[in-house]
C-alpha cells in the first residue's frame, strides 16, 4: 500500500494567476499559485474572505481558465482540452459543490441531483434510484419532490452536496459545503466526506470553520492570492486504494 507521498499527482498548478478587470486596469486576484494535490488526498483550503479561494476552486474544477500559468489535471494540461472534453471531465470526474448552491430553480431536488447522471446518459430508472439514495443520505429523504425555493438554506446546501456526489466522481470540490448548516448536520456532511475519502475519493474543500479545517489531513492557507502556508498531518486519516489511474482522465469514456 503506497503512502500518500507515493501517489500520482491529480492536480498540478504551476504559477497560476488570475486577473479580473480590463487589460489596462487589471485586478489581480490570484498572484502565482503553486499547488499539487495527490490522488486520494483530503485537502482544506482556508483563508480570509476575498483571498481568491472560490476563484482558485473554479479553475481547479475546469470551469474557469487561469490568466497565466499551467494547470494539469491528472497529467493533462487543461488549457489544451477541447470544450467537449472539459464537459466530460466536469461530468464524470468532478463533483462540485458551489458556494451559492446553484440549484436550478424550476426543477425539483431529485431532478437537480439527477442532472450530472442525465448528462452522463444514464437510464432514468437507475439514475432515479441512486439519487433517491443520495438524497436520503444527506438527510433530505422527505423532500425529493420539492423545489429549491421551498427549502431552507441548509436543505439547499445538502441538495447541492447530493448532486455533487451523484456521478460518483473521483474528485469532490466543495466551496464551503457546511456554511449554512448547524453543527449536527455539518458533522453529518463531514462524515460523508470522510467516508468518501476513505473510499479513495480526492477531496478539496474550502472552509471558514476551524473545526472542519482541523479534521482535514492537509490545510492550504490562502491570503491575497498567494499560498502562505501548506501544512500536512504526518498521519493520514486512513490508508486507502487510489480510485483512478491519472491517465484515465485523458481518455474518459464518452
Amino acid at each position, binding site marked *: 500500500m503506497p503512502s500518500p507521498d507515493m501517489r500520482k499527482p491529480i492536480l498540478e498548478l504551476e504559477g497560476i494567476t488570475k486577473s479580473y478587470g480590463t487589460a489596462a486596469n487589471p485586478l489581480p486576484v490570484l498572484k502565482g499559485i503553486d499547488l499539487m494535490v495527490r490522488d486520494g488526498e483530503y485537502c482544506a483550503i482556508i483563508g480570509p474572505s476575498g483571498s481568491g479561494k472560490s476563484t482558485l476552486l*473554479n479553475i481547479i*474544477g475546469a*470551469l*474557469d481558465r487561469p490568466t497565466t500559468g499551467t494547470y494539469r489535471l491528472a497529467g493533462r494540461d487543461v488549457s489544451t482540452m477541447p*470544450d*467537449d472534453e472539459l*464537459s*466530460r471531465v*466536469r*461530468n*464524470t470526474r468532478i463533483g*462540485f459543490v*458551489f458556494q451559492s448552491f*446553484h*440549484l*436550478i*430553480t*424550476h426543477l425539483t431536488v431529485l431532478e437537480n441531483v439527477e*442532472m*450530472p447522471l*442525465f*448528462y*452522463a*446518459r444514464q*437510464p*432514468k430508472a437507475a439514475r432515479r434510484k441512486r439519487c433517491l439514495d443520495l438524497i436520503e443520505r444527506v438527510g433530505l429523504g422527505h423532500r425529493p419532490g420539492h423545489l429549491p425555493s421551498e427549502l431552507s438554506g441548509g436543505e439547499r446546501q445538502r441538495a447541492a452536496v447530493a*448532486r455533487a456526489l451523484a*456521478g460518483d466522481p473521483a474528485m469532490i470540490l466543495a466551496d464551503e459545503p457546511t456554511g449554512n448548516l448547524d453543527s449536527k448536520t455539518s458533522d453529518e456532511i463531514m462524515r460523508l466526506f470522510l467516508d468518501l475519502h476513505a473510499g479513495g475519493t480526492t477531496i478539496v474543500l474550502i472552509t471558514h470553520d476551524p473545526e472542519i479545517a482541523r479534521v482535514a489531513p492537509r490545510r492550504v492557507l490562502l491570503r491575497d492570492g498567494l499560498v502562505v502556508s501548506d501544512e500536512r498531518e504526518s498521519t493520514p486519516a486512513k490508508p486507502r486504494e487510489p480510485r483512478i489511474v491519472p491517465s484515465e482522465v485523458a481518455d474518459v469514456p464518452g
Partner: protein
Amino acid sequence: MFLGELVFEALRNLARHKLRSFLTALGIIFGVASVMSMMSAGEGARQAILEQINQLGIRNIIVNAKKPPAEQNAEDEGSGFQLAYGITFKDAAQIAETLPFIDSVLPVHDKDRWIWFKSRRVEAKVRAVTDDYLPTLKLFPILGRTLTAEDSLERRRVCVVRRRLLNEARYLGDPLKLRLKVDTDYYQVVGVLPDFEFQSPNKAALGIDDRALEVYIPFDTGIDRMGIETVTSRSGSFEASRVELHQLICTVNTEENVLHAARGIKTILESFHDKKDYEVTVPLELLESRQKTQKVFNIVLPIVAGISLLVGGIGILNIMLATITERTREIGIRRALGATGADITSQFLIETVTLSTVGGLLGLALGGAGVVALRHFTDWDAVVTPESVALSLGISCLTGVAFGLYPARRAAQMDPIEALRHE
C-alpha cells in the same frame, strides 16, 4: 430516451409560461391554419371539378339549344309566328360526317309534358334519346333495363324514368308494371334510373332542370309521336316553336383530340347558324381552367406559407432570445455539471421545435374547424388531405428549427463561468 426526456422537459417549460407560449405560437397557429384551410379549399374545388368532368365525360362535347334572346321581341309581333331555333338534324349530320375524331353524335329532343298516373298528373321533361345516351352519361337503371336500339327501331312506346318521378306521383306499386300517359299515348315503364345528384354546373350543361323530372323515351318514338314542333298556350296567346334537336352529345375518340373536335364543332355551328341559338360545353376545358387556377394557387400558397413561417418564426426567435437570457444561470449550471455545447443546443432547439409543433397542431385544429365551417356555411366542399396536414406540420417544425437554431447556438456558446455568475 434522452430525446424523449428533452421533449418532456420542453413541454414542461412551455407549460410554465402558458400565456407567453401561446402568444408566441399565435403566428404559427394562424399561419398553419391558413395554409391548411387554403389547401383544403383548393383540394375541395379540384375534386368537385374532377367529379364534374367525370360525370360529363372527359371525351364528350355537349351542345345545347338555346333560345336566342333577340327573338323575344319578334315573338310579340304576331300570334301566327313560329319561332325556330336550336340544333338541326343537318348540324348533327355535318358534325358526324365531316369531323374525323368524332365517334358518335347523340341527338336529344325534349318536350315538357304533363304525365298522367291514372287521375294524378305530374309535369315532366320527356327526353327522346338514342340507346347510347344513357350509358354515355353513365346513367344505369337500378331497376329493369335501359333503352335499346330495337325500342327506337320499332317505335316502341316504352320509357325509363327517374325514381323521383315515382315519388312525386306517390306511386307505390311495381314501377315496371306502370304505364304512363303522355298526351294521348301510353308508355310502358321498362327501367328506373337512380336520382343522380348532379353538381349544379353539370345540370345546366346537360339540360337537366331541377324541377322537371325526366322521362326517357326512344328517340324515334319521340319524334314520331310528338313531332318537333311545340305549341304552348301562355296567358291566352299561343306560342309556337320549332326545335329540331335540344341537345347533341358528341363523343371524341381520344382525349387529345377533344379540343380540336370542339373547334371543329364550333366552326360548323357558326357557319350554319346566324344567331347564337346554341351553346357548346367542353368538360375538358373545365380541366384546363382548373389547371390555370392551380397555377395561381401554386404561387400564392408558398407565399402565404412563407409569410406565416417568417412571422411565426420571428416571434419564436424573439421569445427564445429572451428565454436564454432569462435562463443564463441555468445554462451555466448545466454546463458546470457536464452538459456539452451540443447538449445545450439540442435542449433549446427541441424546446423551440416543440413550441412551434404544438403551435402547428393548434393551427391544424383551427384549420380543421375552418374547414368544417366552410363546409357548413358555404357550398364549398373543402377536403382535408393528408398532404395538407403533413405540409402544415412540416412547416411548423421547420420554422422551429430555422428560428430556434440561432438562440440555441448562442446559449451553447456562453462561457460556463460567466453564465454561472449571471444574476
